[in-house]
């Protein structure tokens, strides 16, 4: 039974990756969205002048971009399950429902991380050249990106499974997603800020924020996992 679940997990994940490689739907739309957001940021910061230290707002800006783009991707990831009724065929097969949750969430996490790791250097290239660099080693940023994306993927997968069956799915996802994301986003921005600005004590602050991120991932991930079986069954 155990190995069967693992086989099913791999099959769902592989299927999602193959489909994504073929259509590039999620990654391209999320990537494009991230770049467009940066254009808007350029406008938003235009009057702030050269002396303005963009590093102070950068953590907030990248997480704004990431949270909205993640919703775009999460929505997509269920639209093709729903479109031809494939989810029904999936549910008819002898698969434990949590396997579907883990596989879909893992797929979403992978696509999210790909776009995040591609768009962060672009952000640095566009906004941070010729200014003070990062205060702490860049790998700390990778830690936050990964940690927060886990929570986004877990809660987002559950919510997207629901909202795909509602009227106005995209808006609905935002309405449910943002309030639930509040603590995670707040901690992610805090950790990113500590990593970017640096200074004495910043590493400790970083890890303190990361503790919140991990705590959120653990608690909300567990709840999402527990609720998934009910939500996917109706």
């Amino acid at each position, binding site marked *: 039974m155990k190995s069967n679940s693992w086989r099913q997990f791999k099959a769902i994940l592989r299927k999602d990756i193959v489909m994504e490689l073929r259509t590039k739907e999620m990654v391209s739309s999320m990537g494009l969205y991230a770049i467009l957001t940066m254009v808007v940021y350029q406008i938003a910061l235009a009057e702030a002048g050269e002396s303005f230290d963009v590093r102070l707002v950068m953590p907030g800006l990248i997480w704004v971009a990431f949270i909205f783009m993640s919703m775009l991707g999460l929505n997509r990831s269920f639209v093709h399950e729903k479109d031809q009724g494939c989810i029904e065929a999936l549910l008819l097969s002898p698969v434990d429902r949590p396997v579907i949750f883990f596989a879909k969430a893992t797929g979403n996490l992978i696509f999210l991380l790909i776009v995040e790791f591609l768009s962060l250097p672009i952000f640095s290239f566009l906004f941070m050249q010729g200014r003070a660099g990062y205060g702490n080693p860049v790998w700390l940023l990778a830690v936050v990106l990964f940690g927060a994306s886990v929570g986004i993927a877990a*809660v987002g997968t*559950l919510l997207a499974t*629901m909202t795909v*069956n*509602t*009227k*106005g799915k995209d808006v*609905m996802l935002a*309405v*449910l997603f*943002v*309030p*639930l994301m*509040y*603590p995670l986003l*707040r*901690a992610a921005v*805090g950790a990113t800020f500590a990593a970017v600005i640096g200074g004495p004590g910043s590493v400790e*602050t970083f890890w*303190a924020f990361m503790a*919140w991120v991990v*705590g*959120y991932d653990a*608690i*909300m991930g567990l*709840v*999402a996992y527990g*609720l998934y079986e*009910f*939500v996917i*069954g*109706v």
Partner: protein
Amino acid sequence: MKRNPLAEIMLVLGGLLTTAAYFMTFFWAPPTAYPDGRVDFAQKIFYFHVPVAEASFLVLIFTAYYGIRFLMTRQRIYDTKAKIATEVALFFVLLTMATGILWTKVEWGVWWQWEPRLTTYFILTLAVIGYFVLRNSTEDEERRAVYASAFGILVFINAPISFFITRWLESIHPIVFGGGKGSGLETTMLVTFIIAQVGMLMLGYAFYQLRLREEEFKERVEALKIEIGG
């Protein structure tokens, strides 16, 4: 359908107690003072604000509890109960927001401040509104009930996390806006506060029961319609 005299008693009693607490706030509980000796009149709102805030959170416990009961049993009545609990919670959450904003204006001179309690309640307000938006945009009845239950549980678990992280942030940031409310309550203040709190909970209970009865009537009408149709 049986009447529920308890709900009516609670409604009257809750009304009396909250009114009594209102008068006690101004005529019995002693005023507090700022460190510089000025009278802190805005503190009076505390007798209304805190009971409402605590009631809202208590009611949310029922949203989550009935959500879980619904998911376990699939009995529609639990979803109805969860929905009504959330309605009452929304009522209290909005009152909390309104009184919170008033207090912020008087105390800090601005209408809005991203202060931990206000921030948490702002997020909570959005989440509770989201709960009803979700209900309205899900057509199938059972699906609506399952989704609402799941989201209600998520909100209930998420709310304290939001609250504690904002509190924790306050502790690591320099405190810009003084928030000292004076520790330790005098007996008269405590009694006033408790009466306000109990009255508010009674009102919450009464609203809940009366709304539940209304829903039960609707259900009966629905059942009768089906009977006549057959």
